């Protein structure tokens, strides 16, 4: 018998009519690493909650079928008892800490204290689990002073201390920066090597597929595909199923289909594997010609002076009241197209974004928004020029329906009723929210809530739109929608500023990329020149997109930005 057995399970939450899981059967062996992916609201979290017993003990509803963990039916036990076998790490890195510890070590020891172990053993086990996630040096730090990645690793450590056999991580990295994502995935892989059974829900297939030994795609509460990650990804790619297929796999698949490489070896999942496979292709087109033939950047550095002045930073400095300098002497002008701001956490990206609409005012220098000095206007006045959508939708949604929520923005800036109606409809349309127009924002999943918040900013119809981490927590469809949105807004002549960690998104949609590092501009140019300078970008912990790295490893003479470009070089028609 397997460690986890789920048999013909159907479950509907008490608050919903549709079942969240339907006739689901699945068994998971001890020591395996199972990746789970799928669209938002497909039932991935519900699947995890079954194993930890949160369903049906915490989330009530209609339950049929059975779940057993190590031979025990989960209905016959309690969450507390199951917790000794099954550890669970949640998406939000902060909400899952106890909020009652003053040091990292205390936090890691919390469960052990409840178990009533001897004091010395509590200390030893807590210290050991901290060292397993590489946090032994932070033991005396206050938990509220940790970064997202560190908080997530602490959550892991505090569960490791209990020594469960099974670890479930539900989107553990969706709210982290790339550095945090790597940190957390490395710890997860390490645990798998130590023999734990690991179940990870993630949209980040670039990281997940290479590590997992089994991938499950959940679709509308059912298991759509289940098997070896490469095989499943190929199936999904053939079916054009909307999950984030790693670019390298997609490139290899298409070259195999075109007969450019033999299909005996397993498809590559990493840039290095792909480079090794593709280096066998000797007959290549010219990268320079490919680029010249394709879409060129709309952003032209030479003609900057002639454009209408939209946003101007003049030697902007910003120091927080604590004395920490977040921005140190930034001078630039943003006029049109899509500008992506990249850089590691703490590089000053969000501080920069808050200067765009006057939420923060420079401590030295000045910011001009369409010739208005932000120091002389209220935020509400600048909001007519610049709409800013923040990262966390739950910091803003408060109305009864999606439509009313989207109307909030235009109402505030005093748009006429007829015009408001039109703008709201078009924003709802652009963000793919027609189906949920009359629903309560809080009944939607995170990715939809996020799109509602974005829609309410779009509906303000401002000449400048700023989006802070719009792709975070989005599934493949959501990211597609956002890309489309950016294109539409740019076409309407708006300036779109996107603060993002998602280099794949930036490479596909940016006309200009600005890399920030320690409050200064590190690079500022079109996406091709910026992503071509991987060594400079590394200083702010930004890695160019997989395709770009692959092109470089293949020794191409130009920087490539999309799989299409690479395919055109490797399989010229």
């Amino acid at each position, binding site marked *: 018998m397997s460690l986890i057995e789920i048999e013909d399970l159907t479950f509907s939450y008490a608050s919903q009519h549709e079942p969240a899981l339907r006739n689901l059967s699945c068994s998971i062996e001890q020591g395996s690493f199972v990746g789970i992916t799928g669209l938002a609201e497909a039932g991935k979290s519900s699947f995890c909650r079954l194993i930890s017993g949160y369903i049906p003990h915490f989330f009530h509803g209609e339950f049929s079928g059975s779940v057993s963990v190590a031979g025990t039916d989960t209905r016959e036990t309690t969450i507390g008892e199951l917790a000794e076998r099954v550890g669970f790490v*949640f998406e939000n890195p902060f*909400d899952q800490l106890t909020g009652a510890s003053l040091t990292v070590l205390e936090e890691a020891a919390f469960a052990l204290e409840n178990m*009533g172990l001897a004091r010395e053993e509590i200390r030893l086990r807590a210290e050991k689990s901290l060292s397993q996630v590489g946090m032994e040096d932070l033991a005396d730090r206050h938990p*509220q002073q940790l970064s997202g990645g560190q908080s997530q690793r602490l959550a892991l450590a505090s569960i490791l201390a209990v020594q469960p056999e099974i670890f479930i991580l539900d989107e553990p990295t969706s709210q982290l920066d790339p550095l945090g994502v790597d940190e957390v995935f490395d710890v997860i892989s390490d645990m798998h090597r130590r023999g734990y059974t690991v179940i990870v829900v993630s949209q980040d297939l670039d990281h997940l597929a290479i590590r997992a030994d089994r991938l499950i795609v959940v679709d509308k509460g059912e298991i759509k595909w289940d098997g070896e990650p490469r095989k499943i990804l190929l199936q999904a790619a053939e079916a054009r199923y909307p999950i984030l297929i790693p670019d390298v796999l997609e490139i290899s698949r298409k070259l195999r289909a075109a007969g450019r490489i033999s299909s005996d070896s397993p498809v590559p999942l990493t840039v290095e594997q792909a480079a090794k496979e593709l280096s066998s292709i000797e007959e290549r087109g010219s990268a320079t010609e490919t680029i010249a033939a394709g879409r060129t950047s709309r952003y032209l550095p030479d003609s900057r002076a002639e454009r209408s002045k939209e946003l101007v930073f003049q030697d902007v400095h910003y120091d927080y009241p604590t004395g920490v300098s977040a921005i140190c002497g930034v001078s630039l002008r943003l006029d049109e197209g899509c500008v992506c701001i990249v850089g590691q956490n703490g590089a000053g990206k969000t501080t920069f974004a*808050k200067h765009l609409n006057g939420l923060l005012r420079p401590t030295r220098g000045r910011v001009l928004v369409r010739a208005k000095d932000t120091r002389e206007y209220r*935020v*509400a006045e600048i909001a007519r020029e610049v709409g800013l959508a923040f990262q966390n939708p739950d910091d803003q949604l408060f109305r009864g329906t999606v439509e009313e929520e989207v109307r909030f923005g235009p109402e505030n800036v005093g748009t006429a009723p007829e015009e408001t109606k039109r703008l709201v409809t078009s924003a709802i349309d652009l963000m793919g929210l027609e189906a949920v127009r009359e629903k309560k924002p809080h009944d939607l999943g995170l990715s939809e809530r996020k799109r509602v918040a974005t829609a309410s900013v779009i509906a303000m119809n401002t000449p400048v739109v700023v989006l802070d981490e719009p792709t975070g927590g989005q599934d493949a469809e959501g990211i597609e929608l956002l890309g489309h949105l950016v294109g539409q807004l740019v076409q309407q002549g708006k300036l779109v500023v996107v603060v993002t960690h998602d280099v794949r998104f930036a490479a596909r949609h940016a006309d200009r990329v600005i890399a920030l590092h320690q409050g200064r501009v590190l690079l500022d140019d079109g996406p091709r020149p910026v992503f071509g300078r991987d060594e400079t970008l590394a200083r702010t912990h930004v890695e160019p997109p997989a395709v770009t790295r692959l092109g470089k490893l293949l020794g191409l003479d130009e920087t490539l930005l999309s799989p299409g470009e690479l395919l055109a070089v490797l399989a010229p028609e």
Partner: protein
Amino acid sequence: MFDYRPGSSPVHLLNPVTKLAVVVGLMVIVFLLPNLWGPALISVTMLGVAAVAGFLGSVVKLAALITGPLLVAVVLIQGVFYPGNETPLLTVGPVTFWEEGVSYGLLVFFRVLVVVCAVSIMVFSTHPKKMMVAFIDKGLSPKLAYVFMASLQFVPEMQRRARAIMEAQQARGLDLKANLWRRFQALLAMLIPLLTGALISAETRSLALEARGFSRGGTRNHLIEVPDRTSDRVIRWSVAAIVVLIAVWRIVL
């Protein structure tokens, strides 16, 4: 400004329960003592204790902030209007200050001063977690202790969230300086996300606590050891004895 200052003085090493007993004992004593000399003497002693603990400056600053205005107000008002006024002390123009009133005012001032000093010395010298562990050892429910610890971090966390919400709403054009109806809307736009957010994180947190055996029965233990020494017990019994003695003196004799 009103939180724990790390240290290893004898005051820091006392069991938190002992410190609480002394604070409560002192509160009773200063209100039992009939004239200002007792509370004045205790105040000076308190400052000495603060000096030993190494945070005299902080205690003086806090005490000045809280009791300074009180000193002025109470001495002026009682000095002029105290019902038992008989002996004139000082006449300024039409106003006379009376000895009885001034000394009663000072008595009130020193009583409050003792309480402020004692409480701040306890808070400054006691790690909150140690305080909770000591109380759990004496029979406090671990759940109540958790609520206390969590509430310490709740306020700064809520402030942080409230700031984030205000920024997000202003970015959507919410005007904080508009007419009354708009301001009422602004309040809703702030409170609803704040409350829903708090509920969502409370739900996540309760699961996280549950998963870490928070509600399991049986014995618990603590990472931090809070010893209860003989000296602690001696101090607690002494305080109790002194309180009883003074009470007997004041009430019976």
